[in-house]
């Protein structure tokens, strides 16, 4: 076996004047992030292969003629890197001014998507709303796609291709792609059609990685006019057994949307259409809001909790008295939390001493 000469020896480089260690294969950007040295980025998503498009992450490497993109450049032993200086900051500002010049608007509602504030945040940080570099705007919003989930507002697109890459690399659907080239570049689907007619599964990952809000969560955006602060609550998707972590978006007492948890242990930021978009049943008008009890007329009628619970309890008590403890059975839910299943089985076991309990796993 060939032993790498660098193995065993700790790899070191100099980052902003400080000697730091790194491991083989790490990029300069990764090393810097680990060292809590922030480097601005726009085309970067830690879950994706580094792309090197926005060039915001350029750093100075001693011995190199021009700055290098830290997101794609591997750290090497002895490298001397500077992440910030006047020239780099000026380039970053120029890049942001160029970005501002090509877009219809920079400020979008955070309801559009998880990463939708990235551009606006950087633009403010660098004071890049200077109005310089005016000219044509790039990207044309798609007005013909009638899908109810994903807004395709390409007027705001900055061609970072995070959406295309997330669809290919994370979701594996390859539903969207880059059309044309240069300033005419446009995010597209097969034959520039609707998402519905493409390989898109409406998982929403493109929406959540888009740094401009060009791709927007239409369902969440309906809540833009609602007053109140946007709050996030971490929970787990209510559908399949993968158990994806999500952040529930609420305004006041209303659940207005869902965003994936980028650090969710089971999903690392991924979701499917159900977890992403099928949340609003919670506020559906048909939700049961009061207990119902069957009346003498054979119909179900609204009742108070006391009345309904007494009636429920009575029935079980009577069954036990009249037909014995084996006449009562419980079916727990595979959809409700542990506490529901646990109390259900305890209800049967502690109440009647039987094991007459099951759940719906068989259906």
């Amino acid at each position, binding site marked *: 076996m060939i032993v790498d000469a660098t193995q065993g020896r700790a790899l070191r480089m100099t980052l902003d004047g400080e000697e730091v260690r790194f491991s083989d294969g790490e990029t300069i950007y990764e090393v810097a992030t680990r060292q809590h040295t922030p480097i601005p980025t726009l085309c970067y998503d830690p879950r994706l292969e580094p792309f090197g498009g926005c060039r915001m992450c350029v750093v100075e490497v001693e011995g190199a003629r021009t700055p290098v993109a830290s997101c794609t450049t591997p750290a090497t032993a002895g490298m001397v890197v500077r992440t910030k200086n006047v020239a780099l900051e000026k380039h970053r500002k120029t890049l942001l001014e160029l970005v501002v010049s090509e877009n219809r608007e920079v400020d979008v509602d955070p309801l559009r998507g998880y990463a939708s504030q990235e551009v606006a945040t950087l633009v403010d940080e660098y004071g890049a709303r200077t109005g310089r570099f005016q000219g044509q705007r790039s990207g044309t919003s798609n007005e013909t796609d009638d899908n109810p989930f994903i807004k395709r507002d390409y007027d705001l697109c900055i061609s970072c291709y995070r959406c295309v890459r997330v669809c290919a690399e994370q979701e594996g659907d390859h539903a969207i792609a880059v059309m044309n080239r240069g300033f005419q570049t446009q995010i597209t689907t097969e034959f520039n059609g609707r998402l519905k007619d493409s390989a898109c*599964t*409406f998982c929403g990952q493109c929406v959540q990685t888009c740094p401009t809000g060009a791709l927007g969560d239409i369902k969440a955006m309906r809540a833009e006019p609602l007053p109140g602060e946007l709050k996030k609550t971490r*929970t*787990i998707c*209510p559908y*399949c*057994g993968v*158990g994806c*972590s999500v952040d*529930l978006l*609420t305004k006041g*007492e209303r*659940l207005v949307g869902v965003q994936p948890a980028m650090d*969710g242990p089971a*999903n690392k930021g991924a*979701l499917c*259409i159900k977890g992403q978009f*099928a949340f609003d*049943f*919670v506020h559906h008008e048909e*939700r*049961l*809001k*009061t207990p*119902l009890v069957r009346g003498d007329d054979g119909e179900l009628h609204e009742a108070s*909790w006391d009345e309904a*619970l007494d009636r*429920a*309890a009575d*029935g079980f008590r*009577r*069954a036990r008295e*009249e037909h014995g403890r*084996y006449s*009562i*059975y*419980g*079916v*727990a839910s*595979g*959809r*409700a*939390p*542990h*506490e*529901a*299943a*646990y*109390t*259900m*089985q*305890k*209800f049967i*076991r502690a*109440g009647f001493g039987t*094991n007459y309990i*099951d*759940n719906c796993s*068989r*259906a």
Partner: protein
Amino acid sequence: MSNPLIDMEKPDVIFCIGTNMTECHPVAATGLKKAIAHGSRMIVADPRKIPLARLAQLYLPIRVGSDVALLLGMAHVIAREGLVDRQFMDSRTSGGDEFIEHVKPFTPEWAAEITGVPAKDIETAAIWYGSAEQGAIYYTLGITEHICGVDNVQSLCNLALMTGNIGREGTGVNPMRGQNNIQGAGDCGAVPSHFPGFQSCAEPENARKFSEAYGTEIDAEKGITKVTALNQCGDQIRALLIDGENTVVSDPEREHCEHALKSLDHLVVIDIFLTETGELADVVLPATSWGETDGVCANTERRVQRLRAAVPPAGQAKPDWWIVSQIAQRIGTPGFEYESAKDIFNELCGLSPIYAGLDWDRIDQGEYQWPVPDKDHPGTPILHVREFKNGRGLFKILGYRDPAEVIDDDFPVWLTTGRRLQSYHTRTQTGRSQGIDYLLSEELLEVHPHDVASWGLVDGGQCHLSSRRGKIMAKIKATDQSPRGTVFCSFSFNDTPVNILTGSGYDPVTETAELKVCAVRVEPA
């Protein structure tokens, strides 16, 4: 699952059988897609040419219900080609030699005859899986919803045991659990055979432990399953408490099921909507839904995670645990004086050895996969690493059986059922979420285009679909996703109630219904 979800990116050979993962567990399927993008090979066995099959390098279009034959044929080839992991078998398993002797007659040609898959493809699949560094098996209800569901699972275990593809990273026999907390329902003891933590009811010591904890004498004997209970409704079973299940739409033999529920003296349903099942109840109690409820759930990889409320309950809705506890208190059962979900979860942890190291606060970030036997334990992402639960891995000798019902002149077509990406179960939730209808507004019976033509049907037209148990109408979609002679439909839409047709038989051990196979007739309407 024996292995964590993150492992799905790691196997060099992936064997998926009876799982429509891209539709039913989409985020898990992304792991497989990444593995393939990085050079892994995937074998998919499924009667339908599902999306996963299109991603696979080797697709085995097996006839519905012929899984055991395929797996026996593969075991035969693995043994014949000397791909058996002798060291693993000798040190970790028992019954291996008998099994290898047993599979001798089951040649790939024999399996080809039953499954309809060419013998050479069965051989290739066996050789790929048998020579994998890290071979992993994934399955879902396509394996379990058969009269031979247990045999199917056992056959998969046999393959893993003979090749040593278990107990290591990127391997394992991995069932994908269908519902968000179906794993949790089992963990919590909502099964007739086990107390919380999979402690057997038949073990007197366990019965004693729970009798003591609950202050009641509890039978040291398994209870009956739901299927049996439904059969006994009106006779032995008089009162039923159902939490959050739309039995009428999701269970097979719909008419039988409705009849059973109607013949009860007392039916109490807890749910968030008034379901078809709720309509039959004496008392319907409104539960808080997801998003309104604090609690705990466990996913398919045994990861214990927190559910959190973000909005107040709808109307007067109450958490399920509160409702159940109230009923319990009102019939005089002690031990239900809970004030929060936390109290209940911590009680569970105290009684369940696999949760012994957990409590409400420790699961805040969801980093634990059970078993977590004590507070110093990091959790168990991979099961069976050094030894199996009961010591050695046992090979099971088994043979192929036909499905409960096979096609004949009267019912010449196979019907198989399942789920779709955009809808979940009986659509109580997805059906009430805006926009989903845009993608899936009605149920469609998937029929191979040639069959559409030769049976005199029209793409987009209606047909009569009948089985020995009933008859429904369905709208037709011509697609080569269905093989010739087999049709597919999901059980999501109440207006296409396939569960009127299904229910030809049940697995004798688990009493799981054979929802994946039934013989039908398709006629133009």
